[in-house]
Each structure stands twice: as C-alpha cells, then as structure tokens.
C-alpha cells in the first residue's frame, strides 16, 4: 500500500515545475530533489523529504480495513538561517497536496488534507538548517 501511495505523492510533487524550481540540484542518481525517508548525503539544499508517519485501518460495514487512514509528513529542508525559502516550499507543497486528488494504484483516494504544520530549526556543527512542512491525512478505501 505504501509503495503505491508514495509513488503517487512523489509523482504529484515531481510533476510540478513551480515546486522543482524552488529546490536545489538533485543528487547524483536522482532526477528531482524530492526524497523518501532520507536524502543522500550529497543532496543539495533545499530539498523535500516525505514519509509515512502513521497508518491505521478503519472498519466500515464489517470490513476491518475498509478505509486506510494514513498520516504523511511532507517537508522542505534548507541550509539557512532564514526560514523564507523552506516556508515558500512548504506553501507550494500545501497547494499541491491539500485537498487535491491523488491517483493511487490499487486503491481509491478519498481525501488528503493538511492536518498541522511542522516547523523547526536544527543546528549541526554550527550550521543552521530549517525544516518546514506539514502532516497530511490521507484516507483511501478498498
């Protein structure tokens, strides 16, 4: 289930020129600066990370997994002391994902909705990074 879903999300993001123009040069072996789970160490900033945070089946009409209820984290990471660029990407991600349809192989999309934002700075060895994105609730049915 997750494979088809993440391919659908990736496809949605990778196909948007506006978003990709906001991102850094893709790492070697990648065509877009959009990575699942973890970016390669050579990835240029800023980039997008996405991953499933949670997945729970929901019973309906006697079917214990009639609905799949998932929470996906989709965020930008930039190496900067300013959140401006990361927040611009965060905003574009919301345009692309919030209440927008997804074509997921093998299942029926019901809705995908922004639930809450995820914003925080990170400092590693004196270098500041900015994370900005959102948690999206994705509901699909059999």
């Amino acid at each position: 289930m997750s494979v088809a879903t993440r391919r659908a999300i990736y496809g949605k993001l990778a196909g948007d020129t506006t978003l990709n123009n906001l991102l850094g040069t893709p790492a070697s072996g990648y065509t877009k600066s959009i990575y699942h789970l973890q970016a390669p160490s050579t990835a240029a900033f800023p980039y997008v990370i996405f991953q499933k945070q949670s997945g729970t089946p929901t019973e309906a009409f006697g079917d214990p997994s009639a609905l799949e209820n998932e929470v996906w984290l989709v965020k930008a990471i930039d190496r900067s002391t300013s959140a401006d660029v990361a927040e611009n990407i965060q905003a574009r991600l919301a345009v692309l994902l919030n209440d927008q349809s997804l074509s997921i192989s093998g299942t029926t999309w019901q809705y995908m909705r922004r639930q809450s934002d995820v914003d925080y700075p990170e400092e590693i060895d004196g270098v500041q990074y900015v994370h900005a994105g959102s948690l999206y609730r994705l509901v699909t049915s059999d």
Partner: protein
Amino acid sequence: MSAIYKSRLPQIEAELVAKMDAVAKAVAERTEQAAEERVVVATGRLKGAIHTDHTGEGEYSVIAGDNNAFYAHIIEHGSVHVGARPFLVPALEQVRQEVPAIAKTVLRSL
C-alpha cells in the same frame, strides 16, 4: 400497586464534567503509554520524559521532552542526517481508535 420513577438526570448532569475529564485523562495516559512503547530508546532520557499534563478542564496534553530531552521533534520528524522515527503521531492515531472503548468504560458508572 404503584411504582415511583426517579430521574437520575440531575445526578448525571452533576457528574458529567468530572467524568468527561476522566475520559480525557484516560485517553491521554493511554497515548503516553503507547508513545513510550513506540519511541526509539538509546539512553532512555526521551522515553522517561514523555508525560501528561493537565492543561484545563477536560484537557490534557501528552508531551515528549523536558530540559534534559529536548530533541523529541527531531526524533519524530527527522534530522538532516537521520530520518524521522515517529512515535507520538502513531501513538495518537492508535489510541484514537480506542477512544470509544475508553469512554464507555469510564462513563458506565454514571
């Protein structure tokens, strides 16, 4: 033969707020427990810092972190160098499904 029916509504009304607070507390404590079961453990500091705060009538917050474990958001949502290992959102999603059963248990005594 006659029967007298006495309304329990005033008693239920009087107890309802406290009972709903008890439901919220039970849900929060269950979420805290589920988060503790899911969090990755290296030193145990973060696991030990997951706690529940009473923030108002019928309101509880499950908090991961304190002055000694400030990195819960990095574990939950990821670092530049390490991917996210979520524990709080999955705990909440798990317990969300248990809320009706928890509420039923607490409210049965009304």
